């Protein structure tokens, strides 16, 4: 099942979700280490280049993810959620997708305005041009601040998102987390054929 339906997520959404999640976590860790930990300058230079290549990958995937979100069906929210909880979920998802675009764009602006003028050599394979922005120390400092602030904001929303998923899974005992897992896709397929989801049905509170 590649596509979503009302009952659950298809493979495209699931793979995009977890790939972007892994890359974002790696980028946050890289960003922190290369900026905040005193490390060997050779390693630091190398980490910056990995961060940039991974960041462009995240940007590309985030664009696909956002478009997919616009064109694709959204599964039904689990039963019993208040309208406030439902909109909180939707808003969080949209903020996550927006930040997944904004953070790498701001990072691209850092590379583009930097007076160091270091090319973005995507995985040592192809040069990604700088954005048409003037290079100056104040511009670089501003975009560095924007990039960092948005990244921490993204980390905050990722944390909220994870806590919400865990709350759904362990407290509400619904299928919100499970349906985003690879096994969720199989259950989703089974549930479609069976017309019900026995796994989730069995988990429901009496």
């Amino acid at each position: 099942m590649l596509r979503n339906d009302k009952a659950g997520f298809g493979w495209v959404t699931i793979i995009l979700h977890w790939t972007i999640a892994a890359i974002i976590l790696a980028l946050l860790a890289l960003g922190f280490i290369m900026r905040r930990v005193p490390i060997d300058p050779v390693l630091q230079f190398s980490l910056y280049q990995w961060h940039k290549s991974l960041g462009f990958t995240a940007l590309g995937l985030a664009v696909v993810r956002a478009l997919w979100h616009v064109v694709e069906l959204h599964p039904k929210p689990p039963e019993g959620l208040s309208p406030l909880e439902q909109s909180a979920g939707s808003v969080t998802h949209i903020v996550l997708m927006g930040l997944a675009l904004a953070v790498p764009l701001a990072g691209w602006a850092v590379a583009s305005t930097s007076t160091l003028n270091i090319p973005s050599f995507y995985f040592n394979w192809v040069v990604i041009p700088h954005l048409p922005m003037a290079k100056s120390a104040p511009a670089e400092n501003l975009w560095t601040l924007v990039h960092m602030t948005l990244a921490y904001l993204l980390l905050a929303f990722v944390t909220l998102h994870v806590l919400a998923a865990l709350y759904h899974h362990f407290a509400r005992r619904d299928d919100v987390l499970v349906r985003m897992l690879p096994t969720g896709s199989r259950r989703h397929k089974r549930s479609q054929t069976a017309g019900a989801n026995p796994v989730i049905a069995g988990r429901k509170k009496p």
Partner: protein
Amino acid sequence: MTLRLQPSPRAVALALLAAMSVSPSLAVGAAPNLADAAGNYGITSASRIHFTVAQAGGGGIAGDFGKFSGSFRIDRNDVDHSTVEFTLYPESVKTGGKRTEDFLKSSAVFDTANYSTVTFRSTNVKQTGPATAAVEGTLTARGTSRKERFSVTLLDWNRGSIAFNIRGNIHRSPYGMDVGTPIYSNVVEFDMNIKGQRR
């Protein structure tokens, strides 16, 4: 009458001085010749040690070393027996950007805290034309010594001073300076204008 036609010793001396104050190349209208410039010279601070490192997508890093010293001897009888020794202090690197300069001085590149000089000692000089030579020698940087080659062109000289253009492409990875490759080329292109003062 005959006595009058003979130039005075003072006039001869003035004529000689005038002839020597312009470069021989201009005086005789020919290319400067290495053999004619034989002598011992000290490298002066008017020299320019310029380098560039190309980067992916065009452009690159360009800079100069401000502090250096050295001397050379052009052999009177055989240019091929000439010698040169040169020391530069990478601490003096200038690229127009402090962050780049600090990075070049750091342990990532020159490691100036542990290696304060880069030296070159010629081992073999071969004249390749009236005004050109290939100079081979030992380049030592970051504790590694390797044979490198520079091409030398005599630009100008007079009785007191001499000017060369010296070019050479040095691979930096053998010296443990391969940081940034392949974004930045492994090859450092040196384009130096060396001015010498006769000793």
